């Protein structure tokens, strides 16, 4: 099977993160993301999905630190790089979209300037050229009247528009890897659909790999080709999306799938109680130090179809 798979863009091996050196909160997480693949990490809050994404970017804040394992990005272990080399990588080859665009954008700079900054810092362009590129970037994320919008400040835009600006900044330098941490959690359903479609389309056109972190199984199902399920700092299961929803292997995944209210599941006879996670998963199933349950990737042909 390995013969037909390309080398992964990102390969996380036995990653361990701790609060200080002693208290380990992320245990031996390993996964690969292939070029152009959208990989989803799903789990509850506190399961470690966000810190996994942050550690790949090198944005972990003290007292959190990586205490073991490796993060291979295009074959190179980024954990061994110095902070300057990492900074060059960040925003250029790998970029991130955060959950709350209002707090992630600089409120005192126009959005045109914030996008242009990417070209100045990473491509060494002059500001005049960079601004022209910024308008193009805004156009590519389908912000209406980009010329005018480039001069506005973040507070003048709606939530969906701000998130489009974030995506424009992240994709400005055509990175190999985009990490999207709950990109649509703060948005309305109708706006969410548009933003997700935009991410999918742009990344497909450029062949960008995406690490999508979300707690929403619906979003994951719509976007991802392969999904990792995290629980209490462990990656408990990894499968192709279809296989995961059709045939969840780990009891925790089964519980997660059973616990969500589903559209169209209510019958006329009355409202039944929802299944609670604890009824499906025994706590010893969650605590045990079991290896990640995985199935091999399906054929790539299916992925592009």
């Amino acid at each position, binding site marked *: 099977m390995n013969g037909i798979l390309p080398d992964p863009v990102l390969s996380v091996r036995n990653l361990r993160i701790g609060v200080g050196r002693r208290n380990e909160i992320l245990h031996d997480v390993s996964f690969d993301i292939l070029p152009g693949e959208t990989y989803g990490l799903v789990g*509850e*809050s506190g399961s470690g999905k966000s810190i996994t994404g942050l550690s790949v970017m090198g944005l972990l804040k003290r007292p959190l630190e990586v205490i073991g394992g490796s993060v291979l990005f295009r074959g190179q272990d980024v954990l061994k790089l110095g902070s300057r080399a990492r900074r060059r990588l960040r925003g250029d080859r790998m970029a991130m979209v955060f959950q709350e665009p209002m707090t992630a954008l600089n409120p005192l700079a126009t959005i045109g300037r914030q996008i242009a900054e990417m070209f100045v810092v990473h491509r060494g362009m002059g500001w005049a050229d960079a601004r022209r590129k910024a308008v193009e970037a805004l156009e590519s994320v389908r912000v209406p009247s980009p010329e005018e919008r480039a001069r506005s400040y973040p507070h003048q835009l709606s*939530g969906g528009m701000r998130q489009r600006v974030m995506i424009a900044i992240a994709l400005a330098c055509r990175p190999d890897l985009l990490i999207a941490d709950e990109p649509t959690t703060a948005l*309305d*359903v*109708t*706006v*969410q*659909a548009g933003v*997700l479609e935009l991410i999918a389309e742009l990344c497909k056109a450029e062949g960008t790999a995406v690490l999508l972190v979300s*707690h*929403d*199984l*619906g*979003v*994951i*199902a*719509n976007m991802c080709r392969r999904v990792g399920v995290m629980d209490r700092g462990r990656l408990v299961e990894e499968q192709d*999306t*279809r296989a995961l*929803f*059709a045939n969840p292997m780990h009891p925790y995944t089964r*519980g*997660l*799938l059973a*616990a*969500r*209210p*589903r*559209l*169209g*599941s*209510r019958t*006329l006879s009355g*409202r039944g*109680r*929802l*299944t*609670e*996670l604890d009824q499906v998963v025994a706590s010893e199933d969650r605590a045990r130090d079991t290896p990640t349950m995985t199935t091999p990737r399906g054929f790539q042909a299916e992925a592009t179809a």
Partner: protein
Amino acid sequence: MKPPLLEIRDLNVHFPLPRRSLFGPKRTLRAVQGVNLTLNEGECLSIVGESGCGKSTTALAVMGLQEPTSGEILFQGRPLTGPSAPARKERARIAQMVFQDPYASLNPRQTIGRMLSSQLVLHAIARGTEASHRVADMLTRVGLTPDHADRYPHEFSGGQRQRIGIARALMLDPKILVLDEPVSALDVSIQAQIINLLMDLQETLGLSYIMISHDLSVVEHVSDHVAVMYFGRVVEDGDWHSIFSSPTHPYTRRLIGSVPDPDAILTGARALPDAASVPGAARFSPDISRRPDPDEQPEASELVPIGQGHRVRLAQ
């Protein structure tokens, strides 16, 4: 005939907007425009729509936290607004609210027990040991233990905090609970627990709910009646089954269609149920292909019945 528990009649809430120029015309934001809703005893009425559509403003008006520009809200036939409105303390025993973010709505410097019992003291219902007995009862009822009363809000998880928020709202034995996005800040695994708790409480205590939510799968599961709001107006309302089995207004269809659904992956594209048929050559109002200007005078339209208790807004 007994009047319904709560009736909202032709509710309008307008906010003044700044003039565009010194001598420019006055501008108003019509946050809620002519909303009529009825809540029957023991039922759950859900208001859905995107942010800014006026669903929260409607709820705040019910709570008495937002003075309506015009229109009235009747509780068992008695007005809740205007000159003959009940005082705040009396109102507190009619309707209570459960907020979206349980942490932001709890005082971090008060123990849970103090917070819950202070309401009883204020309303002269109980004090001393009697009050702490009632607090312990309420905590057990929402799935916590009596010794949680000595703890502070930061010592609880998100799901537990929402249980405390529900306990706080229930202390005065209100008839109506207004649930403002009660589960959207919670994890999927916790959501089911809180929804189950809300449904159990509704049955045992005979509560009536007004739920504001944008999560349609939760709405479908819990509601008896659903009203869909779009830019200040109700565009479609009906019992939950007619809304979900034959969504008719284009906005309702768009809302339901944009819920990301894992099952769609397995079964291929999910088909939206068929719309109910609409009389004549009428046009839906408002036109959702363009964003309405909130300052503009809305076009004439009315809610037209298209099925058993199912109405949709059409242009006149």
